[in-house]
């Protein structure tokens, strides 16, 4: 066997391995950009459908099936700024498995409408990316939480970009571990910048109004 032959075998094999690596990378891009969204959108749509079925079956409540177990969808979130039809289920827990089915509720924080800081996390990119365009929110915008019995309309009052370790944004009183909460707040967290995660994009909102489901949709969602 000549040295020219083995040189050809080696270069050909290296070339084939490089092409293989390229194909695997392309497959990964397809997985991350397309497939995770397909799966997450399907899971979220199923949660939303099940919640509405359940809510119309028992319009008088209970508001939540307590105790809410990790992974249970218990409410939905509407953000008119992101579209009149924007609705995403809120799932208990913030593991990656939870966040692949909607937005996740930090389980240590209070429930919608309660005094304290109801806090949720959502993906900015991939896995359904409910908060892909959350940066378009402005101070004063409504973020509406729908439960079995009630509409809660929160209004954005502050936008922050913080370090990923700054857990005080989801404290009952943001930034103050020892303060006694007196207001019903909601905090949204997602990664920043989109496609990376060395910061977190935070929106603090405050409960502005609530109304029972029986009195119709809140004015911000009339068009839907």
């Amino acid at each position: 066997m000549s040295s020219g032959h083995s040189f050809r075998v080696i270069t050909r094999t290296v070339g084939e391995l490089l092409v293989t690596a390229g194909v695997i990378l392309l497959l990964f891009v397809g997985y991350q950009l397309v497939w995770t969204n397909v799966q997450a959108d399907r899971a979220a749509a199923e949660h939303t459908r099940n919640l509405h079925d359940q809510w119309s079956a028992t319009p008088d409540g209970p508001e939540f099936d307590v105790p809410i177990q990790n992974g249970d969808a218990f409410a939905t979130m509407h953000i008119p700024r992101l579209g009149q039809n924007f609705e995403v289920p809120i799932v208990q827990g913030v593991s990656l498995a939870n966040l692949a089915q909607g937005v996740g509720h930090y389980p240590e924080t209070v429930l919608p409408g309660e005094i304290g800081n109801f806090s949720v996390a959502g993906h900015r990119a991939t896995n359904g990316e409910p908060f892909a365009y959350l940066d378009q929110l402005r101070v004063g915008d409504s973020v509406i939480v729908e439960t079995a019995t009630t509409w809660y309309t929160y209004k954005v009052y502050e936008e922050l970009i913080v370090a990923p370790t700054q857990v005080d944004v989801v404290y009952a009183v943001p930034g103050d571990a020892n303060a006694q909460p007196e207001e019903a707040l909601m905090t949204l967290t997602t990664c920043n910048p989109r496609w990376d995660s060395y910061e977190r994009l935070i929106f603090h909102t405050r409960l502005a109004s609530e109304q029972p489901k029986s009195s119709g949709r809140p004015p911000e969602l009339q068009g839907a």
Partner: protein
Amino acid sequence: MYAWMWRQLPGPWPIRLLAALVLFAVVVVVLFVWVFPWLEPRLPFVDVTVDETGSASAPLQW
């Protein structure tokens, strides 16, 4: 490498082509079901929570 694998496949070329496509599909399924989901938390796209470690793959404090 691929020429060698092609020669290992049995039968006439249509059968070999079918076998090659099935093998490729198996590789894709293994990647999508096991390899990519394992890789995903190690990349920075899915870190959206605030926690004391700053990483989605570590146990969440919050």
